[in-house]
């Protein structure tokens, strides 16, 4: 017991001091003391979970069917470009995307093998398994069928979700200044947390749009009767109007797309109606200029997410790379579209599957009540320890306070969030943290009753209690780890507090109090032990 080496005293004291030091910024936050806290000391603070700070949380899920459809459409474009415009040119026809597969006819059967060969080069290998993202096969010796492979679709979705996450972040927080959380969860989900936002409607209008912008020429040759029935001439397609008043036939070929934008802003047209002003990048501007030059006095359609916003006439070539998108906008919806366009299109449609909003007052109330409860609970447990164990109760108290501060310090170091259930975890830990000390103290009492001398009793007490302390805490760790693994948001906050609390309470009870006891015994050489 007495051989508590000097280096160990230093190690324990240093650990405790660092833990407490990191707890201070969180404790003095919001008080005048915070301004006097030197900047060279740690100043990481515990962040508050959404349930305490107030704000909105959305769980978004990718529409897998939409993702597959878009991937198929992209492949269709690629194939058409490669075969029709490639060298030598291979004529294809009767393109179909039915059944989630892309199939088409090669007009000249002698070119079939060359076509397959060129398509194979378009597919990408997946990982090191040798499988590729598309299967290319020949049916009836004239038709080529491209089937997305499972691993290919999975990878495409994964890539799309990474891009989607960044797009969502840019849309919610264009300036990058807010404390928003946007993270991927699982294969096809994105969790969005925005503190301080009480009405999630605005958030959802930003995320709800895929914002795929396309400019296409209106097909003037189409027969209006046929268009009403949804049929368009070859090379064209029928798209609905955004205001729901009908449909229009447009050329399939995309003149310019939203990918070539550098900026989008909400502004007003000459009549004072809200519009979105867009600026193309240099390639987009050149292309837009050329196409408008070739098609003066013809209408072109502005298409957003497969719906025609408007189809203005090209009065003159637009050469500066600047254009306006008109439609039935309000200032708000024009603004939302501008942000969505500027942040890029979402590679996949996202649906809101879970939504939680907490008002700011509830959180403040909870923090106040939680803080009061924590302090009162600590005092109650301290009092209980003092009247039960006397001097050893003082050590247990010291351990308890150090433990509470270290939990806060470690949470600050790892930037963990304190949640409402986390407060319960904190108070529970305060009650349970003394357990290790109780085990030790009871064991010392027992050993003394059995007639051991003071030193021997303390030594045996610490030694014999340690296996029970270890085994008893492991069960808590198992429960807390599973809680963390399966839990979401607030529950994870609870699990984190429990886990940190388990580690710190064992450390403080076993090492810290042992050091205090060793120093006392060494100094005083007590003849009797009241415990």
């Amino acid at each position, binding site marked *: 017991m007495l051989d508590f080496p000097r280096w160990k005293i230093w190690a324990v004291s240093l650990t405790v001091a660092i833990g407490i030091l990191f707890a201070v910024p969180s404790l003095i936050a919001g008080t005048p003391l915070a301004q006097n806290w030197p900047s060279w000391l740690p100043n990481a603070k515990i962040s508050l979970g959404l349930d305490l700070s107030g704000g909105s949380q959305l769980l978004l899920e990718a529409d897998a069917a939409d993702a597959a459809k878009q991937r198929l459409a992209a492949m269709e474009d690629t194939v058409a470009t490669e075969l029709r415009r490639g060298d030598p040119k291979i004529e294809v026809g009767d393109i179909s995307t039915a059944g989630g597969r892309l199939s088409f006819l090669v007009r000249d059967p002698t070119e079939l093998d060359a076509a397959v060969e060129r398509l194979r080069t378009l597919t990408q290998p997946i990982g090191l398994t040798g499988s590729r993202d598309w299967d290319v096969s020949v049916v009836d010796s004239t038709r080529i069928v491209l089937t997305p492979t499972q691993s290919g679709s999975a990878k495409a979705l994964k890539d799309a979700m990474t891009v989607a996450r960044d797009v969502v972040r840019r849309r919610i927080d264009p300036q990058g200044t807010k404390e928003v959380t946007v993270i991927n969860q699982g294969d096809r989900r994105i969790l969005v947390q925005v503190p301080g936002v009480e009405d999630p409607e605005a958030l959802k209008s930003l995320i709800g749009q895929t914002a795929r912008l396309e400019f296409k020429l209106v097909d003037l040759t189409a027969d209006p009767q046929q268009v009403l029935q949804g049929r368009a001439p070859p090379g064209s397609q029928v798209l609905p109007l955004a205001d729901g008043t009908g449909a229009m036939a447009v050329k399939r070929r995309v003149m310019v797309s939203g990918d070539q934008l550098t900026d989008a802003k909400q502004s007003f047209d000459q009549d004072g109606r809200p519009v979105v002003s867009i600026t193309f990048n240099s390639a987009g501007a050149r292309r837009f200029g050329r196409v408008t030059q070739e098609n003066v006095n013809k209408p072109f359609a502005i298409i957003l997410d497969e719906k025609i916003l408007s189809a203005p006439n090209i009065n003159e070539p637009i050469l500066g790379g600047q254009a306006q998108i008109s439609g039935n906008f309000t200032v708000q919806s024009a603004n939302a579209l501008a942000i969505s366009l500027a942040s890029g299109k979402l590679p996949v449609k996202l649906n809101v599957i879970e939504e939680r909003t907490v008002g700011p007052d509830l959180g403040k109330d909870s923090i106040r009540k939680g803080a009061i409860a924590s302090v009162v609970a600590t005092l109650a447990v301290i009092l209980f320890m003092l009247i039960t164990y006397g001097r050893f109760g003082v050590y247990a108290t010291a351990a308890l306070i150090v433990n509470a501060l270290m939990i806060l310090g470690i949470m600050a170091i790892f930037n963990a969030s304190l949640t*409402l259930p986390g407060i319960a975890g904190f108070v529970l830990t305060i009650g349970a943290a003394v357990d290790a000390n109780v085990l030790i103290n009871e064991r010392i009492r027992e050993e003394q009753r059995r007639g051991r001398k003071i030193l021997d009793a303390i030594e045996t007490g610490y030694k014999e209690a340690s296996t029970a302390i270890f085994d008893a805490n492991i069960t808590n760790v198992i429960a807390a780890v599973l809680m963390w693994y399966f839990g979401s948001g607030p529950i994870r906050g609870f699990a984190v507090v429990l886990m940190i609390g388990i580690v710190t309470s064992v450390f403080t009870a076993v090492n810290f109090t042992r050091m205090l006891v060793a120093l006392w015994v060494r100094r005083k050489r007590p003849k009797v032990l009241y415990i």
Partner: protein
Amino acid sequence: MKLLKLVPDNTNLDFMRWRNIALVLSIIATVASLALVGTRGLNLGVDFVGGQMIRTTFTQAIDVDQLRSRVGGLNLGDASIQETGGPKTYQIRLPKPEGGEAAANRAASRVRAMLEQQYPGARVDAVETVSGKVSQELATDGALAITLAMLGIAIYIWLRFEWQFGVGALVTLFHDVSMTLGFFSLTQLQVDLNVVAAILTIVGYSLNDTVVIYDRIRENLRKYRKMAIVPLLNLSLNETLSRTMVTSLSILLALGVLLLLGPDVIFGLTIAVFLGIFVGTYSSIYISSPILVWLGVKPDSFLRAEDREGAQPEVA
């Protein structure tokens, strides 16, 4: 200085004498709890059944029936209104609206608008919308987490001790979790994600006592090879009794303060853990220990097999 001793020194209570009566009572309580959950069911929150929950605090006490009819007047389906944590705080639950997400948005904003209009100053504290898909996942994950925690802990105990101890731990956990669920069925307190966290906490902490007692039983089994199992269990329980009482009391003290002074929103979590610690203390004495007798734990359970065999020739 006179120190408090909750339990006098050298107690010699004959806990095991009551073990059969305790067993019958425990079985009755467990079966009754499960039957209650089966017949009366649990008041599952939106986390587990999907739908919408709007939590609101009014400036003064209100007429619930009037609020009910006003919400009913919005034609949003079968709404339920519940008082939570004080006479001014209510939670309005709406079923999953038909017509997907857009309809859900409208429902929440219509309730919001109605509240603002009819009850000036009313504060909307929280709105939660959970789709059927997510609620189903949360329910499955919750059940899975609790089951895995119980099994994981039982396996750990089995590895650290002997299989009888693992079985004892599992039965104890089953008892404690059943009682907790029975309590929620009886009171119809809302079961949400927090309650799952509470049950996991109970699974961890209620076994705390059991493990400490098991640890002492193992120690005594090694120390007193000749002692019969029942007196040995009694001895172990008496030796650890003071610790069991002090620890349980200090946890209950802290949680009691949280119940009285803490935030209302986590009342369900706190009361569940509070009761769980209580039940866990009882079950560590009256379920986990007697089960060792029934499963035939003997003083030589902790001698390694080769020790037992190696001892033979020497005797011969």
